[in-house]
């Protein structure tokens, strides 16, 4: 159970300010979804939370401990990070790719401990990839690869899981599978943060929504609080219709507004 806190987090990418004094508290046991227009700084925020990019100002702490001063192995055990559109360079068997998630624990794919083997098996079952554990990773479809890489991130058993667009390449069925996995992972106590573009899916699964807008937090709260027509107009520059249906909030984007935000 780890609380992740960003305090006045400021990050520059080259000369551009990607994040400006972001204050954000991410609670364990919750699935937080970050949404925002392209270029809002979502990926940069996720990388900064993972300790992969050095802030020019402010800090990220995990239960009070600054992430950037943590030992790399300890950081890797505490925070699992899944980048967007990951690739796998060699035709490694799927099982060995998932087993890479055990590296932070000092376990190699060909010499896993009992707990490591169990973590890998559980991760593969959760991400629904057990059926093709012997297949070469380079021969997978986009959706299969996305799930294998998610299983890799789950296998670390880190208390914090940061995932960048985990459902971008998936069909509706696997979209739901993956979001259910993330939701269950959060319900089991993990601090799960995901970037998404589909607002209706985000509203259905997220406990909290963070709207990132030009490097700043536009809004942070429950989907009902955040997904209002006024907020969507301000952050995304769209007119949208938000309605409450049996399955949750439905956000229908109607028109781009004449003036982009």
């Amino acid at each position, binding site marked *: 159970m780890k609380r992740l806190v960003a305090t006045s987090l400021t990050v520059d990418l080259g000369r551009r300010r990607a994040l400006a004094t972001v204050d954000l508290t991410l609670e364990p046991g919750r699935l937080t979804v970050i949404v925002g227009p392209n270029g809002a700084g979502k990926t940069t925020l996720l990388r900064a939370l993972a300790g992969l990019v050095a802030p020019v100002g402010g800090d990220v702490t995990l239960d009070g401990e600054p992430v950037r001063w943590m030992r*790399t192995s300890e950081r890797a055990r505490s925070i699992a990070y899944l980048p967007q559109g990951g690739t796998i360079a*060699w035709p*490694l068997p799927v099982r060995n790719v998932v087993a890479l998630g055990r590296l932070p624990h000092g376990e190699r794919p060909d010499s896993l401990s009992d707990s490591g083997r169990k973590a890998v098996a559980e991760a593969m079952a959760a991400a629904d990839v057990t059926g093709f554990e012997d297949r070469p990773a380079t021969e997978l479809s986009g959706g299969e690869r996305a799930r294998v890489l998610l299983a890799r991130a789950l296998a670390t058993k880190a208390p914090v899981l940061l995932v960048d667009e985990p459902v971008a390449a998936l069909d509706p069925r696997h979209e739901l599978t993956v979001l259910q996995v993330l939701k269950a992972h959060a319900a089991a106590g993990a601090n799960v943060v995901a970037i998404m573009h589909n607002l209706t899916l985000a509203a259905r699964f997220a406990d909290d929504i963070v709207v990132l807008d030009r490097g700043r937090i536009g809004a942070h709260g429950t989907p009902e609080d955040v997904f209002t027509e006024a907020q969507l107009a301000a952050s995304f520059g769209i007119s949208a219709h938000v309605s409450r249906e049996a399955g949750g909030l439905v956000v229908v984007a109607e028109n781009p507004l004449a003036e982009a935000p």
Partner: protein
Amino acid sequence: MRNLIWLMSRSLTPLTFGLAALLAILAIASLAIGPAPISPWLAAKALVSDQGSASIVVREIRLPRTLLALLVGWIFGLTGASLQGLLRNPLADTAVFGAPQAAALGAVAVLYFGLVGALSWTLPVAAIVGALLSVTLVVTVAGRNATVVVLVLTGLAVGSLAVAGTALAISLSPNPFAVTEIVFWLLGSFEDRSGVHVMLVLPFIVAASLMVLAAAPGLRALALGEETAKSLGVNVPLLRLLIVGGAAIGTGASVAVAGSIGFVGLVAPHLVRPFVGYDPARTLVPAGLTGAVLLLAADCAVRLIPSGVEVKIGVLTALLGVPFFLWVIAKRKAELAETPA
């Protein structure tokens, strides 16, 4: 150190034993093949006990040549495999960084200005400096996240610059004998090398091997990209420094004693990868051994090819390596188009 011990213990497989046995057979053959006919049995005996003139031939002429082919082949295979792992690309080799050409320029510059004779520590050091400069230049120009196309084009440009520099030194040389010597040396050969050459190159090859092998475990996480590797706790900048530095040192030292010999580092990893489950860390040691096997076999072959003067080994490896290179490109065209390096 723990990594090294682990890698060594993991490398004790039937594959490495098979390759080692093959190396031993080729080494005996290499001691036996040459103008003076000596049987393999006598060659082996002449190596360990005094057999008169046979011992002189085997120990003074053929042993240094055999050891050099072994060492140079090993480091080419090892660094080729590590660069392919680092760049996540099966076409990577030191030649992609223009390193052999630049190493040759470094060595030629030292020879040309008559700073030293061909048997000095200065020669490998100058070649290593040349290799390091070319790698630095390529990485600076192409950028760290360059695509393969950008990287190959940059390497081509830097390599061409080094070749032009070498050509300039040759064309301005007042001494025709020196020119002939440099040109033949550039073609790559293990002919007429002595124990001094072995001692000259050995420390650099050991250092380069240790650097590359220390980086091995991180290569595996790198299969998932730099971001993921970092998130898994791998020190990616250090890994890059160890591998690129090791490759430059190994290439420089090899070029200094043997001239320009290409394509071994490109081919060797491909031959072993299917046998180690495509694991980029476990590819390293077998690829090094395969490199040694290939180069030793090639060095035996150039002595067996019936010709007036010995065919240069660099020429032979290029004649065999280039078609292989083209075959890999043809097979992987589609994916190579967009792979970032």
